[in-house]
């Protein structure tokens, strides 16, 4: 999937992946896609909840081994 910015949140635990994501989205313009890679298993539900509550669209999420990848489109 195409993306405009990438955030490496590997090794970080709750709530840091969400906080870093929020910060990264602040630097994006509307419609841009942010790719996030995380190793926190809790982030799967957290990013879905974050997207739902903030209106930024979670385009896709994938799991590969112990890494989780998310694509979020800025509102």
């Amino acid at each position, binding site marked *: 999937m195409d993306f405009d910015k990438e955030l490496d949140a590997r090794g970080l635990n709750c709530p840091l992946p969400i*906080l870093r994501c929020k910060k990264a989205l602040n630097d994006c313009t509307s419609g841009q896609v942010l790719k996030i890679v995380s190793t926190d298993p809790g982030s799967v539900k957290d990013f879905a909840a974050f997207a739902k509550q903030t209106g930024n669209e979670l385009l896709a999420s994938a799991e590969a081994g112990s890494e989780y990848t998310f694509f979020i489109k800025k509102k």
Partner: protein
Amino acid sequence: MDDQKKMAIIATKGTLDWAYPPFILASTAAALGYETQIFFTFYGLQMLRKDLSGLKVSPLGNPGMPMKMPFGPKWFRSINWNMPNAIQSLVPGYESVATVLMKQTIKNNGVASIPELRELCQEAEVKFIACQMTVELFGFEHSDFIDGIEYGGAATFFEFAGETDICLYI
């Protein structure tokens, strides 16, 4: 902006472990778009001090706290070193050692430090209010605390708390 969601927290504890819930919830709420305030009262004032090294964790009288080593091979890390309260209370520096070990465990797990989380809250414009009555009760000076906080009382808290969607006592 009346449809803006709001959250208020009363933070009353002054230990390293209990400093986490208010700062984690407040920073996350801010990231989710909530207008957020934390009212720090009694021991919670410790979380607003410039020097946060006084935040410690105590295994004494805390049966829920696992005492595990943050280093060594896996079998060693999984041993639980809980000791009877009577022994803990006799060993000088037990709390300090437990705190050092806890801070290492926190680091090993990629969990943010309290100074880091507090800074993230401030960056996200979480409003910090220190209870003026407790500041005086405990003999603190405003200069003991970080900049950018307000001082107020119960009525100040209710002014905001009365309009919140979520209100927590921690």
